[in-house]
């Protein structure tokens, strides 16, 4: 066992964070890297808050945004009719296409995890990007990219199953073309987290 100081692989600046996080963010050159066997710099985006978002309630929530090719090869549904075919897949001719799947990457209870994943995957948010957190606190990332890729399957099956009718069989392929960390602006409210765009 050996303790080492975490330094940015890009500019060698020592990382200083208050929280235990799988992602190391460099304040100096804005690089994010992970240490999962090797030292790997990863792509990320930080979404800007809307101008009217109240300052005090702001928080950044990390997601793994997986850009996936999703194709349904066969599907059997009892009741509910034909429109159960994936009409939400972008550019898809009914049976497949490319989608962004958002997997919450922090430690959420199951209900919040599902709500955020389905909400953002169904309607991907539009936001302006920025390269720093502007002193807004952020939730730590606890889920790895590989785990998120597994959860992406759960997200797509859930979206199919929750359409009308009762799902009986689903044969599909899901390929992850790109994965990046996306910090989305949220506001803490009595109803839970709400988007602050």
């Amino acid at each position, binding site marked *: *066992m*050996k*303790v*080492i*100081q*975490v330094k940015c692989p890009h500019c060698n600046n*020592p*990382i*200083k*964070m*208050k929280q*235990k*996080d799988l992602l*190391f963010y460099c304040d100096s050159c804005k690089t994010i890297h992970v*240490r999962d066997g090797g030292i790997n710099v990863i792509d990320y985006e930080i979404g800007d808050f809307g101008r009217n978002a109240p300052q005090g309630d702001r928080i950044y929530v990390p997601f793994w945004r997986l850009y996936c090719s999703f194709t349904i090869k066969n599907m*059997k549904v*009892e*009741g509910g009719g034909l429109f159960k075919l994936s009409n939400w897949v972008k550019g898809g001719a009914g049976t497949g296409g490319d989608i962004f799947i958002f997997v919450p990457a922090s430690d959420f209870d*199951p209900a919040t*995890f*599902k709500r955020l994943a389905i909400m953002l995957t169904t309607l991907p948010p539009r936001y302006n990007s920025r390269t720093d957190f502007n002193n807004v606190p952020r939730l730590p990332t606890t*889920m790895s990219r590989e*785990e998120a890729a*597994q*959860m992406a*399957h*759960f997200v797509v*099956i*859930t979206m199919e*199953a929750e359409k009308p009718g*009762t*799902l*009986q*069989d*689903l044969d599909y392929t899901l390929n992850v073309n790109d994965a990046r960390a996306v910090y989305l602006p949220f506001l803490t409210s009595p109803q839970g987290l709400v988007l602050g765009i």
Partner: protein
Amino acid sequence: MPDLSIGLNCPACGGAVSVQEGEGVLNCQYCDSTLFIEGDKGVQTIAFKMKVTKESAIAAAQGWWKKGFKARDLKRTGKIIEVYPIYIPFWSTTARVAGWVCGYEERRHSDSKGNTRVERIPKEVMVLSDYRYSEIACDPGDLGIRTLRNFSGERSFADFEMIPTFETTTSKDVAAKDARSKAEEWGREQANVPHVTFERLYVVPHNMSIIYYPIWVVRYSYRERMYMNTVDGVTGTVLSGRAPGDPLFQSLAITFGSAAGGIVSGAGLLLAAFSEADQNGAYFAVGGFVIGGLLLFGTYRFFRRGSEIVEGEFSDKEGSAKTGLGDIKQISQTLSQIGGRYP
């Protein structure tokens, strides 16, 4: 005694930092540097403080003796032989199970004319919850304890000087694999779809840790035979135990069992004697004899094994049936199966 925190120095400022086993990242309390642990991180180890006194453990065991079909004079006649505390290590983790199980359930409807119609009810069930895994990490002999029921308590290693501790003998990798498959199985059970046509379950496990759990072992005797109890050292409840069954209940069972066995096999033999020419009669006679013999065998088994009431996760029991009555049920099931063949 396991060394919990390993004393090391911060490579940036030289300040003393203590690293908890199983930890991957920490922050130096002096210079705020983020520090990373390279190499084998070990496993996070937790010990719960013994909260239950020896007297309370004995009282809990004696309270347990009074319940169920245990010997009615156990409370008076049972003699405590020895009572001692031990620490048992358990592997412990939580895992999120997410997925869907789809399929159908069949329901049978009968109309007044006796026609049966099978209705197929399609089902789609989402599984999304956290599974708590624990499994004993050593072999302390058969104490009737395999998994943890309580996961909270005051954390302290102070009692390690006083209480004998079992070493961990199973590996983290084996436990992690076991946790994964148990979590999946659990998810499937939660979904409860009788006929599955589609199933996708994903398991995301958290870090594995070891919990040292304090337990009282109570050994006692009843009519020259040895029995035992284990008592949870944090909550004070009885975790497992073996006890003598009630003699009256037993002798009733033996009497009825033998009588029924004797009558049935006797009748079988009689029938065989009087119906040599009739082949069906002969079959019935043989059947009767077999059933009678089984009844006698069942009685014998009940006398031998059912005379003991067993509670807990013992290896000589299937699952964790709550009382020795499980044995009787098993015998009666065997009998009804055989009986079905010889109506």
